């Protein structure tokens, strides 16, 4: 359950930022989660209510933006989507590919009152 620690980080960062802005309340937090980040969005959701209780985030919405993974083939240059870490280029079948997106785990923005 490392999503619990990640969710605590979300609440910590958002609350610190909210205090800097002298906000009374956080209405929503938007988090970007890449499909290869190793984090299950549902588990973040599950932990969020418990972690936000008693903070400026109590009652806030957790908005999760899923980021699809994509890679670039180092041999032919083609960019392509992938649904798991193991991928070969769909054009030239090369296994030498660099990941362009999919490992994100980032708090993007929030709305405060």
């Amino acid at each position, binding site marked *: *359950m*490392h999503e*619990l*620690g*990640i969710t605590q*980080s*979300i609440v*910590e*960062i*958002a609350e610190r*930022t909210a205090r800097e*802005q002298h*906000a009374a309340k956080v*209405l*929503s937090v938007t*988090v970007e989660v890449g499909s*290869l*980040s*190793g*984090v299950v*969005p*549902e588990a*973040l*959701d*599950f932990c*969020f*209510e418990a972690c936000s209780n008693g903070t400026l985030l109590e009652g806030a*919405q*957790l*908005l*999760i933006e*899923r980021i699809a993974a994509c890679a670039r083939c180092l041999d032919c240059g083609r960019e392509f989507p992938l649904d*798991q*870490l*193991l991928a070969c280029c769909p054009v030239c079948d090369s*296994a*030498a590919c660099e990941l362009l997106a999919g490992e994100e*785990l*980032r*708090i*993007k*923005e*929030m*709305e*405060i*009152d």
Partner: protein
Amino acid sequence: MCIDCGCAPAEHHHHDAPKGKKITIEEDLLAKNNRLAQRNRALFQQHALLVLNLVSSPGSGKTTILETTLTDLQSELAFAVLEGDQQTSNDADRIAATGVPAHQINTGAGCHLDAHMVGHGVEHFDLDATDILMIENVGNLVCPASFDLGEDAKVAVLSVTEGEDKPLKYPQMFRASNLMLINKMDLLPFLRFDLEKCREYAKRVNPQIEIIELSCYSRDGLERWYDWLRSRLTKKKL
């Protein structure tokens, strides 16, 4: 599940947006761990300490590999061992019985060690008098992959009593590892473990990964593992 309306799965997240002031944050959620890991790394560098993070499923033989390694090499190299488990000090007790300094970290509900725990864990050792710090992570092939501890290398242990397709099932861990130890090789004749496939799967996930097959009971492969340790340490001390 969505806490707002109880809908599942989490795709259904776009309810009417609350009206408030938008603030951009753009902060990595692992930033705090990564900062602490960098601090650990700087400390380890100062002491020219080689630090290895041992990861595997529960029961792959990490602790036995450590016991054997420490017993064989402690006259030549100074080790210290951090043991991570949810509960008990059993593993640290086993290590301490070899005479090597060991400290147990209990993660409680946690499924992995993080940089903060390791930073405090090493306060128990005299780092100037240590060549190699071994960190035995919690037996788990998922979560420890995401948490940098400040180590020089991750060593993934896979035993032949497990499936040869573990690298494909848990690619993140094998991609993050520099070395894979295939353990319990003495049992291979009794099992239907496909060694060649296992090697191929690991290389497919991580073309750079080094692989050493060994057994702590037949002692096959141990010298190759020890040479790997010596050469990594030599590079570190340069």
